[in-house]
């Protein structure tokens, strides 16, 4: 198992036993995972995003495969806050693994209410800022510096017990600027990247493969972009960064840590192999054995430059 290796990671006041977690939207509310492995093997699980009221999601087709990746336009289908608190949260809290809720909304007020209601009920709250702000003509919070800052501030004000993680959007013109703003507003950690807006077309039918036309690209195809953004964001702040984007092996995870991540999240890889997060954790351990590394945090920012 750990054999003299320290895999602990600290995110604000939350200590994780290892740096691997499931990415939001790829592990449901945790119970489906438990069919395959004990969720408490992981550092944390980040749950499917929830909005104040239930969201139906987009009409199908919602997914399309692309070279080394996939596009999804699920449309953030979720049961809403009340059903989440009543039905989805209690079973996953019993697994004995830190639980991070992911929240989404169309106004800063919705995020604030969600943050307030979830504070103390979960170990952490991750803000999905890639949603459009309907009060500002639908521009996504994550690409509008002022809207973003206000959002993080409102959420931070209402959270005293759980840690606040801000999930940055890859659409940000300058990812380091958004990273700094989140840190200035008191975020305990950052996570990045979310999916990248993308398209796929069937040349024979002349139709887009996704009903919604545009969806989010994920998987190995985005790893180079994600690595670059994790590198830039982590250089700009002192708070820990959770890196994600196409991680399928322990080696990928190590690359993100070398780029600056303190922890990693695994998403699309779970669709290739439901056991992926556990396999990736084992891969990190194997790397540490091979390179005689005693403490996983020594990998963070360990990139050799120049």
């Amino acid at each position, binding site marked *: 198992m750990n054999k003299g290796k320290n895999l602990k990671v600290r995110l604000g006041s939350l200590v994780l036993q290892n740096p691997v977690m499931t990415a939001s*939207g*790829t*592990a*449901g509310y945790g119970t*489906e*995972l438990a*069919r*395959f492995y004990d969720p408490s093997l992981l550092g944390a699980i980040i749950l*499917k995003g929830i909005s104040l009221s239930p969201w*139906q*999601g987009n*009409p*199908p*087709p*919602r*997914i*399309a*495969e692309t*070279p*080394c*990746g*996939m596009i*999804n336009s*699920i449309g953030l*289908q979720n049961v809403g806050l009340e059903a989440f608190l009543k039905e989805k949260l209690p079973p996953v809290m019993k697994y004995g693994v830190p639980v991070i809720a992911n929240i989404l909304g169309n106004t800063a007020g919705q995020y604030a209410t969600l943050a307030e209601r979830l504070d103390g009920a979960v170990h952490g709250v991750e803000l999905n800022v890639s949603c459009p702000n309907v009060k500002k003509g639908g521009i996504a919070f994550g690409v509008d510096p002022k809207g973003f800052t206000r959002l993080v501030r409102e959420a931070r004000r209402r959270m005293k017990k759980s840690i606040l993680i801000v999930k940055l959007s890859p659409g940000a013109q300058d990812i380091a600027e958004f990273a700094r703003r989140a840190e200035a507003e008191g975020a305990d950690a950052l996570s990045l990247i979310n999916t990248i807006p993308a398209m796929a077309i069937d040349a024979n039918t002349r139709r887009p493969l996704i009903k919604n036309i545009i969806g989010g690209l994920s*998987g*190995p195809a985005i790893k180079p972009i994600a690595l670059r953004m994790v590198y830039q964001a982590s250089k700009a702040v002192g708070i820990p960064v959770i890196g994600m984007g196409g991680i*399928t092996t322990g080696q990928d995870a190590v690359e993100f840590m070398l780029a600056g991540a303190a922890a990693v999240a695994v998403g*699309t890889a*779970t*669709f*290739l192999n*439901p056991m992926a997060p556990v396999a990736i954790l084992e891969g990190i351990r194997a790397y540490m054995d091979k390179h005689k590394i005693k403490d996983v945090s020594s990998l963070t920012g360990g990139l050799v430059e120049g």
Partner: protein
Amino acid sequence: MDPLLKRPFGYFRMDAAKGELEILYRVRGRVTSLMSALQKGGEVEMLGPLGNPYPELISSKTPLIAAGGVGIASVYPLLERFKGRAHLFYGGKNRDELPLKETIEKKRLARRLVISTEDGSAGLKGTLVEALEVFLKEQKFPAKSFTLFACGPQGMLKALSRLGLDGYVSVEEKMACGIGVCLGCAVKTKNGYKRACAEGPVFNIKEVAFE
């Protein structure tokens, strides 16, 4: 990494004693082309069983099976389960889309086998839905005495849902995870979006909101 995702298939035949599983598929795109190039002794990675099978038949009902093209792969185990009691309506664009026609005829797997091809190259000219409508009209037994089990293209299932029969359809949706976590395989039902991989792929025909 490329192709990235697994593809969903129904099981066609299974021999638990021999430890054998058969999949019947049509070569349509990249992955099925790759599959057709596999050699004996090669390796495939499979996750399963996933989803829900066709429910048991109520013994007082007569089974009607509707198979459109490669949908025959999904309903074939039912022919064996119903031990020759089922009426099978098997249709496609042309006779090349009916690969199991001879097998079913020879083994007498159905009580009545009605073949339809849109171009008339085998059986009745027209769709299987048209053939099924004729059958129901000629029946002295009421529609309620039958249970329909159907698998085939979306348009076929939609037309079947208008016949007022009780029964089940097995739907086909693009899937990413297959285990109910990604919500990619959404099927519109009268009770919101359900997951083809978790609540389906078999649904009550009256529950699906066909478009």
